[in-house]
């Protein structure tokens, strides 16, 4: 048995339901825009990581692949070593300044890419 008060509650609940089923409760463009702005801001960004990897691989391929890069690194290290501790015979064996040539070549390539 439903009491009058239970009946009144059911009427109120029905009124609350139909209130929102009526006009003025459609999805608006403004709400869609707010929600999508959040979606864009929260978007997971695999593309950002790919971008960072992309920069490295572009740099590496510009220099002629990884073997060339390790060659360049070895040459640079050797150049630094030669600059820091030139063997006594080097001055007579090589006229000029091979150390600075090695550095300049590497830096030019890096700067041209960046």
């Amino acid at each position, binding site marked *: 048995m439903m009491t009058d008060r239970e009946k009144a509650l059911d009427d109120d609940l029905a009124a*609350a339901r139909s209130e929102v089923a009526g006009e003025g409760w459609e999805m608006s463009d403004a709400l869609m825009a707010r929600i999508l702005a959040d979606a864009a801001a929260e978007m997971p960004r695999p593309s950002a990581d790919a971008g960072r990897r992309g920069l490295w691989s572009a740099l590496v391929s510009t220099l002629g692949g990884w073997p060339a890069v390790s060659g360049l690194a070895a040459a640079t290290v050797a150049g630094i070593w030669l600059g820091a501790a030139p063997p006594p015979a080097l001055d007579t064996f090589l006229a000029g300044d091979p150390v600075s040539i090695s550095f300049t070549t590497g830096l030019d390539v890096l700067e041209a890419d960046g």
Partner: protein
Amino acid sequence: MMEGSRSGRAPAETSREAAEDARLLAAYAAGDLSAARLLTARLAPRALAQAGRMLGDRAEAEDVVQEAMLRLWRQAPEWRSGEAKASTWLYRVVANLSTDRLRARRRQAPIEDAERIEDSSESASDRLQQKARLAALRDALGGLPERQSQAVALRHLEGLGNEQIAEIMDINVRAVESLTARGKRALVAALARRKDELGFEE
């Protein structure tokens, strides 16, 4: 009058709909923003209606929907499509957020003051009286224990079946029945008290 709340989610369709929601969510997580637009178009209107029925206020309902969808976007990368349905998850989040707001509203602005002002200025208007009755209903809903409030709203404002409510609230069907029965009794008592106080006619 309950049909509207069930639109587009008849049981036979549910698993297909859920699979499509999951696919769109995965596409969004993989960087496809147009998937977010489609997903919003599928899920947000119903969420807006749910929040609107609970809160009776469009601006507040919109805030709830935006917040619920924001949580969905944040969940997207870890979403396990086999474990949860986006629509069920959203029902739960919107119910939680709306209940929080009803309770906060009750703490911040006790309804009695506003009610009495309206009542004295235009008590003859049926429309105002209905507005006041619905405000009283929502206030009473906010005064229930949280789980009762959610179960009553899902059952009697959304018109959902007990099994679906059980899934949404992650409890069994008997617990849903118990919550809605106790919640309704408490609502009847709270509204009866208010009607006695304000002299509403029924």
